[in-house]
């Protein structure tokens, strides 16, 4: 399940921010901001993507680098949210 989430996010970033199919082009641990993968307005696009794709609601106070700054962090966040919202 969590590997699916990770793969979906990974593919979305490749497709929409790096514009490539090359899986190797993105390290799941790489910081979006430090590596210039996602820019300041790109984060908002990312929020819309995870809300629509995973059916979660991102609260303003959750929009933080620790939740959004890499594929791995984002996948963990989505997983946590799904558990929370299910209970």
């Amino acid at each position, binding site marked *: 399940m969590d590997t699916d989430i990770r793969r979906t996010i990974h593919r979305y970033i490749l497709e929409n921010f790096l514009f490539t199919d090359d899986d190797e082009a993105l390290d799941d641990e790489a910081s979006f*901001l430090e590596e210039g993968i996602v*820019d*300041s*307005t790109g*984060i*908002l696009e990312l929020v819309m993507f995870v809300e629509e794709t995973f059916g979660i609601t991102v609260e303003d106070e959750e*929009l*933080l680098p620790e939740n*959004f700054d890499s594929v791995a962090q984002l996948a963990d966040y989505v997983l946590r949210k799904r558990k929370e919202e299910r209970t």
Partner: protein
Amino acid sequence: MLLHRFLEESSERFPDKTALVADKRRLTYAQVESEANRLAWALQAIGVRRGDRVAVWLPNGIEAAIAIFAALKAGAVFVPLNPTLKADKLRHILADSGAVALVGLRRHAALFADLRGGLPDLHAVIAVGKGGALPEGIFAYDALIDGQPSSPPPAAVIGIDLAALIYTSGSTGLPKGVMSTHDNMTFAAKAIITYLENRPDDIVINVLPLSFDYGLYQLLMVFGFGGTLVLERSFAYPAAILRRIEEERVTGLPGVPTLFAMLLQLDLSAFDLGSLRYLTNTAAALPVEHIRRLRAAFPHARLYSMYGLTECKRALYLPPEELDRRPGSVGIPIPGTEAWIEDEAGNRLPPGEIGELVIRGAHVMQGYWHNPQATAARYRTGDYPADRRLYSGDLFRQDEEGFFYFVSRKDDIIKSRGEKVAPKEVEAVLYRLEGVVEAAVIGVPDPILGQAIKAFVVIAEGSGIDRRTVLRHCRRHLEDFMVPKEVEFRASLPKNASGKIDRRALANEA
């Protein structure tokens, strides 16, 4: 006055006060001063001399701030570069400025080794960050400053010497370095400090890149008045910025319309933002509706609408008490300067009429580095040599009481996220993609970005180019704020009578 005296004087007055909060560290004025001195000695030791250019290509952080002041203390001219700059443009600016040293991130070490080959002036690169051995001519920042003296090195610099070259996009598509002297920059910084009524207990958060003059001056001004600067990487995470404002009891928030639009999408009542004493906006006008909502969200903060350009730093500001009466105005000339409106024939225009904004004062910079032609197009001398005037390239009008209103630009520069984007620069990159036959770039209205960049592209048959190919190519060659948001493929592009692609016709369709 010398720009680095800002730091030195504050360090004499408030040695133990927090000067800089960044990268999860807090540095006092004495610590910043001492580290900047050590790096300045190191720069001199690796061959940096008075007047040499030192490029600083770093994300916002402690080393970026230190490197700027170290370059000044070494007698050099700093050249701040956007951290998302790509290799080609980096090479162009390093060559154009004749930089002798570059301070950058260690993870770009391979690029630096490559750059040094083609740039004979570039003696040394200083790499910031942890890691192992580095190629020849590339020095590790930490090792380099280790053991250097913590007092300022000797440097015979005077106020009319250059302090910085700040590269800005021009309508020709090639970035130009605005020559700024110590006197220009200290004058501009002090004028802004005066109208913002900054005090040593002000705590300013800066989320704008230090390569952008608006971001850079937050550092300069805070060190000038002895306050505290909270330096953040970017405003990608608006909620994180609000949390930082809360945690650090920030009093000043400089922003651009994109940042404020992002903040207004959040539930601001979830944060305690009562420490904010003022907000400033420049780079593009805030929509009047956003002004109203910001006033409601921050009832205790004064909101300043301002206007400026790198060529003089800041030209106009609206005293906050005028905001409700004239929300569409960007105000009056900054203290100690003047501005007026001229028609094409050079006649000063009365209130109500539209013409070019002309600026006069000690903040008017020296023109463009090694580019007398571009300088002559913007800067003119009046009745005597020191009477220099800046022709802004922007159309304005004034009301009966003398307040200025921005009308439009004279050229087709796009303002996206508050930064200038030259259509030609983006088009030049598009043309380098094999299979692109024609390209044109315009700005289209966008609620968050102000203007979004839209590219129109004609491709050769069978080239197989799609939107992704175009965007990937752009991201590889352009800073992030210059990458188009939209790409439209066309069979042909409209031309004007002289056969040139007609961007205006495209803009009218869009």
